């Protein structure tokens, strides 16, 4: 049950090996979050994450197997996740995502399909499965990891960016559809964050560590903001970038 600050006592992470999501949950575990369920694929990483979260303050960490490249399994994973949390869950983080390699993906239909399955279709199916569960719960909170890459798609990563654009739009519509049922749904738009996903990539302006991103996200989760930008300055940055004429946008670095 959440408290007046919206601090959750139980959290389900769909995409439980995401560096940023785990950093967020570790902070939540230092406050009121004691029950965590991590749904993911890599057992070793999940076990390590569980240990970290227990050290951070969680009393119970359950692990659930998840296959994000199979969207038809999303509903079952959601059910298993909520059951592992004890039958109801305060906060669901959807943090599943594949960055992919743009230069190969754009020529590869199978890679493109996989990217869309993992980044867009699986999460959309999960949200559809969550909808009735959360409305029946009578209270609940969902935060979906989108990306600034989806705000205005760039040639440099349009495959990834467009999946995030789709997920972002889906989540905002979804949020409006459950607002009157007491369910809070937020979109998280991180800029470039140093994580295993971006290892080896060239840094761009407004990059942060996972720790800083997690800090910003936890603040955002406690607010009523529909969109959580991290770092917050990106909101203003993209307000401008969105409206650049196409020829100028195409010249942007990266």
């Amino acid at each position, binding site marked *: *049950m*959440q*408290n*007046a*600050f*919206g*601090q959750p*006592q*139980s959290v389900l992470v769909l995409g439980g090996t995401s560096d940023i999501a785990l950093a967020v949950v570790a902070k939540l575990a230092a*406050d*009121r979050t004691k*029950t965590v369920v991590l749904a993911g694929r890599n057992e070793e990483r999940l076990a390590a994450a569980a240990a970290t979260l227990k050290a951070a303050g969680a009393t119970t960490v359950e692990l659930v197997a998840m296959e994000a490249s199979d969207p038809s399994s999303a509903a079952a994973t959601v059910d298993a996740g909520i059951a592992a*949390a*004890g*039958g*109801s869950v305060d906060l669901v983080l959807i943090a599943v995502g594949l960055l992919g390699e743009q230069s190969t993906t754009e020529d590869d239909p199978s890679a493109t399909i996989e990217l869309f399955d993992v980044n867009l279709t699986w999460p959309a199916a999960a949200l559809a499965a969550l909808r009735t569960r959360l*409305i*029946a*719960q*009578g*209270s609940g909170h969902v935060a979906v990891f989108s990306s600034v890459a989806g705000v205005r798609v760039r040639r440099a990563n349009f495959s990834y960016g467009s999946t995030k654009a789709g997920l972002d739009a889906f989540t905002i519509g979804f949020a409006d559809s459950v607002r*009157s*049922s*007491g369910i809070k749904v937020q979109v998280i738009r991180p800029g470039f964050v140093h994580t295993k996903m971006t290892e080896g990539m060239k840094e761009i302006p407004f990059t942060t560590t996972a720790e800083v991103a997690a800090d910003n996200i936890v*603040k955002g989760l406690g607010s*009523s903001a529909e969109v959580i930008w991290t770092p917050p300055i990106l909101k203003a940055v993209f307000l401008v970038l969105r409206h650049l004429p196409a020829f100028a946008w195409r010249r942007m670095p990266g």
Partner: protein
Amino acid sequence: MSSPRELLTGWGNTAPSLAVVERPRSDSEVTSALQHDRVIARGLGRSYGDPAQCAGGTVVSNRGLWHLSPIDPDTGLITAGAGVSLDELLAVSIPAGFFVPVTPGTRQVTIGGAIAADIHGKNHHVEGSFMNHVTRLRLATPSGDLEVTPESDPALFWGTAGAMGLTGIVTEATIRLLPIETSWVSVDTERFENLDGVMDAMATGDHRYRYSVAWVDCMTSGPRLGRGVLTRGEHATADMLQGKAARSPLAPPGGTLLTVPITPPSGLLNRLSMSAFNEAWFRRAPKKADGELHSIGAFFHPLDGVAWWNRLHGHRGFLQYQFAVDDAHGDVVRQAIEVLSSERVPSFLAVLKRFGPGNPGPLSFPLEGWTLALDVPIGPPQLPSVLDRLDEMVAEAGGRLYLAKDSRLSPEMFATMYPRASELDAVRQRVDPDGILSSDLTRRIGLTPPA
């Protein structure tokens, strides 16, 4: 035929949850309302947090359980349906020369709510809490309807006091009213430049008054820390009145003067405005005045004059923090104010009272000593951890928080603060073996399972 679901919160407008709301008007309708998986009663929703809401379950409004017996002129006993509010009761009883034995700062609470929270007022040091004045009650439980008195079933009677609805739905209660000669209160007011002054005066002089309360400034620091206004009084006798008042000594309390019709944008109440308010309120009080006549409404229920005043706190809502500590740990009051002031948490309307001995209720809040209550708007990012720190101070001192005000206590802290909570297990096993009675509060603090 299913009842509509409603989004409910407490008075602080935080943590909304969706529930089916039933509005029974008879005992049989209450019994039907109890045929659900998850149920809790709700009165007028003046608890600040989440004790009267039930995510995914059924909330049973007691307002339809409304009846009022004649007042026995010799004993002052009156029997009321659980849905009767103190406002409604007083409208009838004051003209007849009777007051409620215990009243909180608002008249907008139901008899059922008064029992479930075991409310207290400015006279706890003399008269104890609400349940001390209840002679019998009827409780609708999943195991059946029960007639409960402190003699016939002390475990269930006292277990119900402060249990926030966990023993069942109160449907009716008999209360002993207090005879009064007038609807006025004779008030002695004194202003103190710091907390020590206030607390000394209360510790040494409260026994001379039936009613005593201090308003304390939690935003000043240093030598002016906790400066306050102490008001103490007794019901005025007829001989104290003059002129128009003397001609109708028992005129009933006033209605609403103003209302806040919409919720203004957050930020209307902030550090600056609250500091200014505190200063004005402090300066407005006389340095010392004795025997001034205040109406019952002005003395006991000043905020009732502004309907929906909680909306002034904006969309983010607010919370109340109220704790009690015993006399040996009175310094916790000072320490708490010091923490709030140094952490720059804006707060006004901080109220300090003395408590007399508590009653046998395992979950009843008052314990002999001091109680401080303050309103805090939600907004300052340091607020959650500041309040957690206050929790630790209070728990370490053997004190506790008031569940009727709480909206963020952790299960661990609750267990420390209410070590006698397990005494309720046997009673609950008897009246609610399947554990259907639960609220967002009870799930949050671990009194009932989380799911």
